């Protein structure tokens, strides 16, 4: 038998050992990169516990690499670390997607709330613009102030969305919606007949009051 063939089994074994003796740095780096991408995308605040865990996995990985590095190359075994690194990488990718999805969900809810508020406020302002019969001047002015406040609060919702503060945008938009409905109800609630002013006198009063 050729001597070269006799060398083949030990060579193969060496290659196998060598393969297992390599740390899975690429997988670890890839997982780290994906985590950072998720954080850069502001996805981490939406699943903070999951991100804490994946970071824990990463540090466990790194801790697993160190004792193997201290051994002779022939006795190093990165098999488990490698397996863990593969899992961590796929987990990091899942988190990136899940975090982004959650962020998008929250954003969509905030935008929906904003849209509802944006539709309701002009309708309320239109009601405010019609001077309701029977209201005294102070109530009327108070209702107008409410309408103006609603309008300027809508800008605050827009600002919160621009800064990606979706929970604030959502609660603000909902608050505006509620307030808007309350203002509309106040305008639309008919006064008892006995408390209504004579529209004719009101018109006359208006002429006189215009000078002030």
């Amino acid at each position: 038998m050729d001597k070269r063939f006799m060398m083949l089994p030990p060579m193969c074994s060496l290659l196998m050992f060598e393969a297992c003796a390599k740390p899975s740095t690429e997988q670890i780096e890839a997982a780290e990169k994906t985590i950072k991408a998720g954080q850069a995308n502001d996805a981490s605040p939406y699943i903070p516990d999951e991100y804490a865990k994946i970071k824990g996995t990463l540090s466990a990985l790194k801790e697993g690499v160190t004792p193997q590095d201290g051994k002779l190359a022939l006795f190093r075994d990165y098999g488990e670390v490698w397996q863990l690194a593969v899992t961590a990488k796929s987990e990091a990718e899942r988190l990136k997607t899940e975090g982004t999805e959650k962020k998008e969900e929250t954003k969509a809810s905030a935008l929906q709330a904003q849209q509802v508020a944006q539709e309701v406020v002009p309708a309320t302002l239109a009601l405010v613009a019609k001077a309701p019969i029977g209201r005294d001047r102070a109530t009327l002015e108070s209702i107008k102030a409410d309408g103006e406040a609603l309008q300027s609060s809508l800008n605050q919702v827009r600002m919160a969305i621009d800064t990606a503060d979706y929970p604030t945008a959502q609660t603000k938009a909902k608050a505006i919606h509620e307030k808007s409905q309350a203002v509309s109800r106040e305008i639309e609630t008919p006064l008892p007949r006995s408390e209504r002013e004579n529209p004719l006198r009101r018109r006359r009063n208006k002429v006189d009051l215009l000078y002030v």
Partner: protein
Amino acid sequence: MSSHCPRLIWAFLGWGALALVGSLSGCVEAVPQDAIEAVENIDRDLMELRAAELSPTDYTQFARQWMALKARVQADEDLIRWPWEPNDLEVALRRLQEEGSRTVARLTKERESHRRSAEDKIARVEDRFRMMTLQVSAIDSRFVLGQKPDEIELLMKQAHAFYEEGRYDRSLDASDRAAQNLATEAAVLSSELGRYADRDRISRWQQMAKGTITWSRIHRTSAIVINKADRVLTLYRNGQKVLSYPVRLGFNGIREKQYHGDGATPEGRYRISSKGGQEQTQFYRALVLDYPNEDDRRRYQLWRKTGQIPASRAIGEQIEIHGVESELMPQTLGCVMLDNPQMALLYDRVSKGTPVTIVGALHEQNSLALTLAALNDQREET
């Protein structure tokens, strides 16, 4: 002998089998399932407590240990060991379980205290807001505050929404901002209505009123003094008080009139420029004042120049003392309003040229000064 041999072999085999079964049943799994479940439950509790947001350092530490142990669990999953063998993994899991339980207990307490703080803050700010609204309404100063009350209302709605979601930190933040707005409201009122608590100003108003009364005495005729803080009109004749009626002012009446449409009632020395009988006015009877006078025009120009009022705003006019039929009109656009029977009496006792002095307040303990002092006290308490 030959019959004994197989029996011995069978006995050996029997004892051997028994020993094997005994040994195998004595072996235990290297990964204790109950400890893993316990740590998993703690992790779930921590997630429900929003530990990653409430106490990120604690949760990161827990997660780091848990993930490291999980990796070991995966590696040792198929291992079995002798019961007398030390089990590091189990020890580590039990330790993490203990630490985790302590963290859960501490965070539960912290969260409860957070919840209480948020609840207390909401209640405190809402109480103060309600009280302030009442006080502001009592002195008719709602319009001085502009959109501030609405902002506070929206912030409180947000605080409630965050509280319901269990986001106590955000709820506290919204309540804090509402409280800041309340403090700003009090500051705005102090700045806008501070003159009602200003001794010098009150002294000047007192002198103006005194001057008018003296004029009435010297000229042996009628004069009117209107006190905005008390909402009272007093008619003097020959320097003597003849009658005193409650009045209603502009919807922003406690402010000093600056421009057309501001709803404020002017302050100053005026005269009745004309009288309007039933056929000449919309308001039963009216006494038209010579507003704006020279002083008003000078002040208006100054305010425009200093940008205190928009350039597009004109100076107001047609300020009257008039009657009203409907009790549903609690305020005017800036005029002074009396009930018709009282207006009739007043109308008959004054003439064109009668001096009318409108002042903010005539004594230091007026309703506005007292309200401002109360608001300041509350601000200090919060």
